């Protein structure tokens, strides 16, 4: 066994021990730190496998025998998992103890992490599917250990139901590949013909897409992620859906043989629908965690746009840009993992401090929780795609990929890429609106509740986890050019030596994005202008409300800030609202307002399907009378029918 494999096994073993320790009485904190140590080892192993192009353990094989191994692509995902899981575990050290079922959740966290690692390291079908199912089941178990009221049970049930029905696609895709001996061997599936290729491509898109949260298969995601404890939500939204994308990339980019053009168009279409749909519904959420879950759907859509653009560019014969688009998708995976993990952790810290995640109940937290609030501000700016943070680097690359995909004939494909370009620009602007709203409601202005006024920063472990992730958002944003060539070399058909390394993003056919220089220029200019402006200020005055006294009732709400957009997009969002006005003595005494925006996919797809299923079940139940004579009649009818068929020669 190679040294790399040895260290990897030691890391996995450490996590197992950490899980065991966490389950012991009064050892939860130590157990979580041991898990963090194990994840650090695994993250370093992943990084080495990625940068040195080293392989460890077995290669992919179609034989039915358990096998584990690592290659650069697994290494990349493992490194990202390490980067996000270690701060999450350090956060959990101070977050988890004292909550209900804390020891069980701590132990199950170790199991969940091992399942994630296992999917990434699996080198044959049986191991992959085993870890894949564990990855689905363990967080569900952890959620139920932590909370088990009716709402949580129903959310977990929807999660398991939808991911298992959709997840059948994964089984179909992998078993067909196995059948053709095509695990890790693209030539084998190419030899099996386009029918098998199409089947595998569709099955993998549905199976992995359900788990990744592609619209319309996403319905479980905004239900399941918000009910989990903060560190598990962070891992689920940060990493679990990324591991699904790992599977998608493996199957569709490495094992499919030839990738058909329609697959590129399909991925771009799915990307447009998921990114626009995800961010639109994120925008109208009241609950911070639900909002973040919808925003994960948006970001998975952006990754799909990068992957689809890569296929289209490869089809048009532009090898370099196909590799860049692929790298853009991978970079966005890493970036989204960092900032979404961060945002979910901060949401956990807010919930602890304030006792609510309803956006209209927060406010003024930046001043009262400077560490948490500052980290949240950085994470929000990163996810809104603002320079010079990491979200902008990968969105810039994805936009450039789509733009360059739109330069090539045929016209139809170019128009798809062009429309996707416009849609991604709108998505970015919507994400900006969404996170301006979140930052404003949670961090700025006056506290909307007494609890917010009394909130303070959490314990040092939670703070450390958030600060590390926020720094990662900044650092990854400043040096995207150092990471890019490594990621480009992971693209199908690319070689390591093809690409030169720059500090910023300096690519052919672009005007370059020197991230560090832009950051330095902005910082210097801001500092200089602040000095120039000086600090001469008059006494503070109340803000202007046309002469009225400024009272808390005048404060803006989440619904108010998104009202213009809700009005414009009324036909898509279909908001529902109820207003009750109580009048007395000719005057309005009291009015209440309640409004929400139902999920469109739920109302037009899932609910009719459920209704139709229940109706069909009612009809079918009429057959089951419970009367023995009826059943005898069925049998008689069946026998006569079969005899008739045999007589007429059909059977």
């Amino acid at each position, binding site marked *: 066994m190679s040294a790399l494999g040895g260290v990897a096994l030691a890391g996995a073993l450490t996590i197992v021990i950490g899980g065991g320790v966490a389950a012991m009485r009064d050892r939860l904190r130590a157990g979580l730190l041991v898990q963090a140590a194990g994840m650090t080892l695994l993250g370093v192993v992943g990084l080495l496998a990625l940068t040195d192009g080293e392989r460890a353990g077995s290669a992919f094989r179609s034989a039915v025998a358990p096998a584990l191994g690592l290659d650069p692509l697994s290494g990349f995902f493992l490194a990202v998992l390490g980067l996000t899981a270690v701060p999450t575990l350090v956060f959990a050290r101070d977050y988890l103890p004292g909550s209900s079922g804390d020891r069980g959740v701590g132990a199950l966290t170790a199991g969940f992490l091992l399942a994630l690692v296992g999917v990434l390291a699996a080198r044959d079908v049986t191991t992959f599917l085993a870890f894949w199912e564990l990855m689905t089941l363990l967080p569900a178990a952890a959620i139920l250990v932590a909370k088990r009221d009716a709402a949580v049970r129903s959310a977990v049930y929807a999660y398991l139901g939808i991911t298992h029905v959709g997840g059948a696609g994964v089984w179909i895709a992998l078993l067909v590949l196995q059948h053709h001996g095509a695990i890790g061997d693209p030539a084998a599936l190419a030899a099996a013909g386009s029918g098998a290729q199409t089947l595998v491509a569709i099955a993998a898109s549905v199976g992995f897409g359900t788990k990744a949260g592609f619209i319309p298969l996403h319905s479980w995601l905004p239900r399941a992620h918000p009910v989990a404890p903060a560190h598990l939500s962070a891992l689920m939204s940060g990493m679990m859906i990324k591991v699904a994308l790992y599977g998608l990339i493996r199957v569709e980019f490495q094992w499919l043989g030839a990738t058909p053009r329609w697959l590129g168009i399909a991925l771009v279409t799915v990307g447009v629908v998921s990114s626009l749909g995800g961010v639109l519904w994120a925008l109208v959420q009241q609950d911070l965690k639900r909002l973040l879950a919808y925003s994960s759907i948006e970001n998975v859509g952006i990754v799909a746009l990068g992957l689809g653009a890569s296929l289209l560019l490869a089809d048009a014969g532009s090898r370099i840009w196909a590799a860049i688009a692929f790298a853009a998708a991978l970079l966005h995976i890493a970036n989204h993992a960092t900032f979404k993990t961060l945002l979910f952790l901060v949401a956990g810290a807010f919930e602890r401090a304030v006792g609510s995640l309803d956006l209209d109940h927060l406010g003024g937290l930046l001043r009262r929780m400077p560490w948490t609030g500052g980290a949240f501000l950085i994470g929000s700016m990163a996810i809104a795609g603002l320079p010079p943070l990491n979200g902008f680097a990968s969105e810039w690359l994805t936009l450039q990929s789509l733009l360059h995909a739109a330069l090539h004939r045929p016209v139809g494909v*170019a128009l798809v890429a062009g429309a996707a370009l416009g849609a991604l*620009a709108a998505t970015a602007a919507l994400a900006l609106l969404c996170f301006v709203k979140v930052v404003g409601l949670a961090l700025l202005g006056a506290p909307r509740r007494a609890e917010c006024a009394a909130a303070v920063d959490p314990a040092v472990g939670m703070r450390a986890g958030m600060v590390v992730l926020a720094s990662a958002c900044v650092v990854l944003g400043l040096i995207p050019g150092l990471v890019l060539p490594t990621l480009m070399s992971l693209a199908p058909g690319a070689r390591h030596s093809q690409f030169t390394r720059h500090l910023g993003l300096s690519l052919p056919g672009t005007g370059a994005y020197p991230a560090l220089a*832009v950051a330095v220029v902005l910082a210097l200019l801001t500092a200089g202008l602040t000095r120039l402006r000086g600090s001469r200020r008059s006494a*503070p005055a109340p*803000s202007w409300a046309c002469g009225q006294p400024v009272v808390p009732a005048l*404060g803006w709400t989440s619904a108010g800030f998104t009202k213009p957009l809700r009005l414009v997009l009324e036909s898509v969002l279909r908001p529902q609202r109820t207003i009750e006005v109580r009048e007395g003595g000719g005057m309005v005494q009291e009015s209440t307002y309640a409004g929400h925006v139902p999920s469109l996919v739920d109302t037009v797809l899932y609910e009719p399907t459920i209704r139709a299923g229940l109706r069909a079940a009612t009809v079918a139940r009429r057959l089951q009378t419970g009367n023995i004579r009826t059943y005898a009649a069925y049998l008689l009818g069946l026998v006569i029918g079969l005899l008739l068929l045999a007589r007429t020669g059909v059977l």
Partner: protein
Amino acid sequence: MNIAAAVGQLLGVVLAPLLPGLIQTLKARLQGRRGPSPLQPYRTLRRLWSKSAVDPEGTGVVYRLAPPLIVACLIAAVLLVPLGGRAGSFGLGHDALVLVGLLALARFTAATAAWDTGNGFALMGAARDLMIAVFGEALLLLALLVAALPAHSTDLRAMSTAAAGGQIWSAPAHWCGAFAFALVILVETGRQPIDSPDTHLELTMIHEGPLLEYAGRDLALLHWAAAARHWVVLVLGAGLFLPHPRGFAASLGVEVAEVIALCTALALVETSEAKMRILRVPLLLGLGCAIALAGAGLSIGGAT
């Protein structure tokens, strides 16, 4: 020549307030008034610079830091926009999409500052501004796509050079792109029929809303930023979508004339068009997106 272009770009930081001043003067003349001199914005800036700022109660670092950061973004944007197809090297690159990112950062900063004040009028303006930006940003990207097609690059210098000469005007795609970018100019400068820069009624403000609480030097900085936004889109529009010759000096001269012509056009539109209902704006911008996309299709289909 690059040094000349760099000097010109740096001069842009100083000259930007001339553009809204010129538009105000021309508009007054068109309406039969004498109006202020084109130098009026400089006088306003000087007046504001000598006044002290007032912080609304309860505001913090976000509100305090917003004006310098917004101006920093706009300075960087001005330094990105090439003049006569050339640009100095300020270390910022020359990419069109970086420019889009910088404008987005400025917008984010203004809107978060509005949240920090908690002022209802400021938030109303910010919410509307961000809603329009959703459609405006898609439109801007598609217009840039049309301009990037002949250059095969998003390098602003290459895009400007590819648009030089008369030949490009025989391509219908260029006309589509020019129409789309004209709408971008209206959105980014905040002019009628989308926004009215002269309004004093808080309820109708879009771009002006988030500025409502600021005073003194802060307000001066934000006024400059609004003027710089004029500079960025008007110079960019002249460089990418209006006819200009190939050489640097000639092209620079033509661009100056074109920017003045664009200011006149804006004054004409402001005089003749009433402000449209805000909920109709997305329809107009959506139409622009469709035309730009059609232009992109024509360009790819027509290219051999």
